[in-house]
């Protein structure tokens, strides 16, 4: 990644202009050409550094429901329970974390009811309790990772 790649990545993480020629606008800010911006973004997509660019929807305002859930999984059952949990298409972002509650995952559904039924199914299939930590208030979301 060269210096211009990094500047493009940092600039576009903050948002893409909604204008006739957004990449030309970015190019003039960064003092390069429109083609350079487009080509470099295309390379980053091809290399898998970017998964896509465009809108991040706020699922809650679209009627979606989420929760962050955690489980205390005995070490010897970790792989088995991971398989059970990950088999649910509603489960995203499952991480092993260093704590007594060692499995943390997000459940994303269309309604609160569905969330509760997914949690109940996971509890039944794993015979372990699922702790539910729904978001009560959001103070900040600003994933910005400078390169």
């Amino acid at each position, binding site marked *: 990644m060269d210096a211009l790649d990094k500047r493009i*990545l940092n600039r*576009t*993480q*903050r*948002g*893409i202009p909604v204008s*006739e*020629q957004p990449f*030309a606008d970015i190019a003039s800010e960064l003092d390069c050409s*429109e083609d350079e911006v*487009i080509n470099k*973004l295309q390379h980053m997509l091809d*290399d*898998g*550094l*970017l*998964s*896509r*660019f*465009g*809108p*991040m*929807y*706020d*699922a809650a305002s*679209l009627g979606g429901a989420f929760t962050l859930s*955690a489980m205390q999984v005995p070490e010897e059952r970790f792989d088995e329970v*991971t398989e059970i949990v*990950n088999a649910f*298409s*509603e*489960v*995203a*972002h*499952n*991480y*092993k*974390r*260093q*704590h007594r*509650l060692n499995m*943390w*995952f*997000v*459940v*994303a*559904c269309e309604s609160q009811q569905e969330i509760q039924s997914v949690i109940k199914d996971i509890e039944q299939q794993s015979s372990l309790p699922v*702790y539910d*930590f*729904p*978001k*009560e*208030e*959001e*103070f*900040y*979301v*600003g*994933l910005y*990772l400078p390169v």
Partner: protein
Amino acid sequence: MFAAIEQGLPLVAQPYLAIAEQIDASEEQVTSTINHWQKQGVIRRFGLVIRHRKLGYVANAMVVWNVDDECVEDVAAILAKQKVVTLCYRRPRVLPEWNYNLFCMIHGKDRAQVIKQLDDMCQHGDLAGIEKKILFSNKAYKQRGGKYSQASASGN
């Protein structure tokens, strides 16, 4: 239109015009709808979705705080101002197993860096005296999935 932009903008000089042509609308209709959705908060952010692990951000820590209920707003305001904090949410305690009611995420290139950033944060502000715990992730077992996963960074 929703479906047309869901997978991302086309990488062409006039991407909004390209979308307009796809859905038989005018460019102005497309941009004004996007601006409207951004104002309403339906679109939270219009930018890149980057694979942070590929950029070297491999240490992802969830930092949880046990904050007096009446101070949550104040502490959250301090956390939200920190450059390294990427998310900050209030979540319920689950007693007696879990005392923590304020969650934030710090993404860093290695654990030592994340710990140092957290220590630096706690030097100033009123954070020093608050009980907290740092939960590093050992492994990402699943990073995608869920019907609305593209919209949620909440556990990431």
